[in-house]
């Protein structure tokens, strides 16, 4: 199954990733070093000024030479071109090469201005006002760089931003991958000048920074009724070479099933150098199968093989420095259902956390390729704090259960108040997950907790509330599980925790499928929702991470890896595990002489 990671607005979204490859023997590969500025996790302090904008990338990029073509292989095909409808990783990678927004996300997890001029608006620099002007809850003032133009030569102005907002909010629009969150909080956008954008919000909206990740060309989107765009008119393969774009490349030709050719947009100005891209063109070649793509890379058909996973590492271990393995934003975890008869008891959740040997899972099932996870926050996130690590300790787990009144029955399985300690373990049919749950089931048995492993189709376990019933096996939104194992994409925005962990967000309203109901967690999330003060958000997130571990909201297992094969002849290739994708700096790529 294809790996769907969710291009659009996924930087603020938590999403499922049901299928990635299995890992096997540990390869000898070059691991991309953690971004330099993120190597140490500082302790939060309310007085601390949180700097989200100082990336080290400008000091790491090198001067390139003009010319040449890079061919990128992928085993998934991009086939949607409007950034707001895209849901695949590869589509996000294409979009990053052709469209721009106010800011982008760098490879070291910082925000960098793109269409917007420095500095990006914050409360600290007065660009964000809470409360806002004229009765707004919040007013954000952006200034765009001077002299930015679309690929057809027309200037990129505030009018394009307004048109994008109106297009997103059009009553006929549907299928927007990121929904309308944030957009619907905007009451008006003023354009005091072509490059000044004043956004009025009716609510305080924390994620105002990445909201305008892509600005669409007014003079294109207004030519086709939105209703028709939804039904497939516009943004077509034939249209795209004529669609004005803002990125370093523009669409050359699209040949479905074979390749997509992007050619240099000579009117693009790199925010760092002010120059167009180095490369003449970038070609995406579509393979039907990851193994065939790897073979194609070895044969020299392509310069980069993208979208591989840690499961592919053993196949490419001989490629040495060409293997770029980076910790992904995807973490695998156990999700105890707080509403289930057993897991509603905090003691049982504590016992579960103590009865999981993450090192052994990594060694026996993942061949040591994984990076153990201790919270749901990426170690590279700006608000990450070193978490308390729950060590594997079956004796302690037993004593906690004893103290909580879970007494062993005649068959050795514990009981309390007539409830038998029997846990329904649920996951997808992916073998790696079934093997993990089999191990965990064995450890649970040792502490007197019975369990059954249920492997069901992704459609069953991940089916939405309206598409499932109370009988759908293991369905998350219907709470048909005791403990589920699956994966989440780590959000970069603290706000993304709200719909998943707040007690008021059970399906169909939100995604609190685990029925988490804790006043402390609710308080922290409520406070987070009402602030745009990054220092305060960092402090609140530190508290959230502490509560997350203490209350066993989840049992994180490990972070997966993004793997790319990259020819050593490509300069300035850095990768980027965020939804911006590895093409985030494609304008700087060059062919080494």
């Amino acid at each position, binding site marked *: 199954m294809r790996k769907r990671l969710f291009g659009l607005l996924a930087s603020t979204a938590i999403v499922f990733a049901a299928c990635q490859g299995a890992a096997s023997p540990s390869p000898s590969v070059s691991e991309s070093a953690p971004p330099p500025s993120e190597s140490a996790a500082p302790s939060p302090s309310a007085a601390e000024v949180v700097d989200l904008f100082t990336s080290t990338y400008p000091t790491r990029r090198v001067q390139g030479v003009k010319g040449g073509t890079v061919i990128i292989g992928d085993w998934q095909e991009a086939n949607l071109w409007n950034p707001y409808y895209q849901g695949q990783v590869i589509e996000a990678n294409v979009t990053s090469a052709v469209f721009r927004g106010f800011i982008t996300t760098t490879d070291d997890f910082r925000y960098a201005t793109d269409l917007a001029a420095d500095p990006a608006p914050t409360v600290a620099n007065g660009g964000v006002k809470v409360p806002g002007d004229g009765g707004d809850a919040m007013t954000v003032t952006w200034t765009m760089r001077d002299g930015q133009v679309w690929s057809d030569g027309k200037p990129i102005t505030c009018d394009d931003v307004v048109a994008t907002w109106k297009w997103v909010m059009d009553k006929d629009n549907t299928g927007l991958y990121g929904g309308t969150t944030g957009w619907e909080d905007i009451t008006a956008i003023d354009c005091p000048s072509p490059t000044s954008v004043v956004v009025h919000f009716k609510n305080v909206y924390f994620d105002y920074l990445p909201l305008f990740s892509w600005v669409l060309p007014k003079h294109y989107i207004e030519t086709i009724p939105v209703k028709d765009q*939804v039904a*497939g008119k516009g943004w077509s393969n034939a249209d795209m070479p004529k669609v004005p774009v803002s990125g370093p490349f523009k669409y050359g030709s699209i*040949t479905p099933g074979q390749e997509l050719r992007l050619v240099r947009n000579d009117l693009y100005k790199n925010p760092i150098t002010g120059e167009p891209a180095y490369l003449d063109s970038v070609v995406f070649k579509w393979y039907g199968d990851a193994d065939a793509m790897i073979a194609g890379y070895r044969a020299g058909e392509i310069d980069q093989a993208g979208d591989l996973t840690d499961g592919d590492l053993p196949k490419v271990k001989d490629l040495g420095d060409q293997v770029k393995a980076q910790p992904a934003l995807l973490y695998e975890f156990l999700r105890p259902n707080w509403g289930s008869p057993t897991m509603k008891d905090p003691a049982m959740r504590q016992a579960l956390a103590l009865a999981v040997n993450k090192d052994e899972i990594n060694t026996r099932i993942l061949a040591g390729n994984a990076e153990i996870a201790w919270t749901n926050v990426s170690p590279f996130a700006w608000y990450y704090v070193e978490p308390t690590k729950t060590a594997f300790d079956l004796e302690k787990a037993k004593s906690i259960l004893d103290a909580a009144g879970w007494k062993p029955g005649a068959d050795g399985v514990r009981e309390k108040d007539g409830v038998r300690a029997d846990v329904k373990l649920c996951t997808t049919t992916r073998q790696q997950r079934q093997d993990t749950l089999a191990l965990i089931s064995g450890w649970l048995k040792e502490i007197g907790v019975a369990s059954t492993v249920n492997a069901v189709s992704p459609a069953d376990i991940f089916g939405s509330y309206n598409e499932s019933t109370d009988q759908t096996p293991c369905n998350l939104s219907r709470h048909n599980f005791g403990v589920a194992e699956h994966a989440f994409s780590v959000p970069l925005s603290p706000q993304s925790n709200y719909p998943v962990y707040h007690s008021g967000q059970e399906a169909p309203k939100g995604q609190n499928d685990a029925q988490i109901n804790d006043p402390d967690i609710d308080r922290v999330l409520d406070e987070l929702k009402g602030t745009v003060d990054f220092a305060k958000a960092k402090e609140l997130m530190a508290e959230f991470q502490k509560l997350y571990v203490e209350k066993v909201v989840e049992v994180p297992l490990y972070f997966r890896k993004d793997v790319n094969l990259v020819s050593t002849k490509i300069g300035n290739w850095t990768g980027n595990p965020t939804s911006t994708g590895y093409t985030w700096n494609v304008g700087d790529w060059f062919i080494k002489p």
Partner: protein
Amino acid sequence: MSKYIIRRLIQAIPVLFGITIVVYAILLAAPGGPTARFANNPKFTEADREKFKKAWGLDQPIPVQYCRWMGICNPENEGLAVFIGSTGWPAFLPTSISGTTNGLLHGDLGVSIDTGEAVASRIARAALPTFILAGNALVIWILVALLIGVYAAIHRYSLFDQAATVFAYVGYAMPTFWLGIMLIFLFSGPGLNILPAGGMTETRLSPPFGSDTYWPYFAANPATAIVDIVKHLILPVFTLVVVNIAGDSRFIRSSMLEALGQDYVRTAKAKGLPVRVVIFKHALRNALLPVVTNIGLEIPFLFTGAIVTETIFSWPGIGRMTIEATRSFDYPTLMGLLLITSALVVLANLIADITYAIVDPRIKY
């Protein structure tokens, strides 16, 4: 004969109609759907999901969706008025009368939910690569199977016959996906690196096949372009034909052996006719009767059964499109593909029956 062909074509209509009903019901009853792409995306709410379904007509009951797909129902109307076109005439009538443009009856296979492209043009684009792959495979498959089968029958129990038997068993048992990947490992990047791992053209040399720039390139460099495609054809064609050659060579051998033991062959031999005439005129022609039927039924699956082969070798044809459409629950594309597959099966049956009559003069329709 012409009456028979017309009768068979008319009979095919209800068959295809029945197939579309069954396939549509199965497709839409399967778990999951086009909204699976938004699964547990917290920014895509249930309201967004319902809006998306409404926009694509997925909120309607399956019979209504089918009715719209067929072009019997007009999606602009509700209630019993769905059967009425914009001109007031029944919606299923031709567009010029009913004003209805949607649905199969009006030549519209719909729009792909996955790509927003018209299904008919999607399929048309993928048809030529599949035709090139399947056509080459077909010729090679029939020729080689005939040669092996006939030679093995004539030289029964010879070393060649034994080797052909072993090949048949191994070839028939070999999974296509495994064979394809092994061939890539052997002849492409990881191995000898003499054949491409996938695709239809060499990206560094040629524009993509079928693109606007391809045909001018082809006209300017015909030899280079043909060699390029042939190089890309070798591995997928080999993968595709191995199973068919294995199976049909045994079938032909068996049929040929039976024919060689018939009285009319003995008579021909007794009359002193040359061996070549006995084999090719008397034995082979009769042996081909069951073979024709068998091959006729297999041909549609060569076109549609290239799903695995086209996927492994990144061949931009109908098979690969079927996989993509299945992955994304793209109902309109899948229905279009399945309709064409069904039509091919019906057509192949008809061609087999007609060929049967040509090969065997005793058969009259």
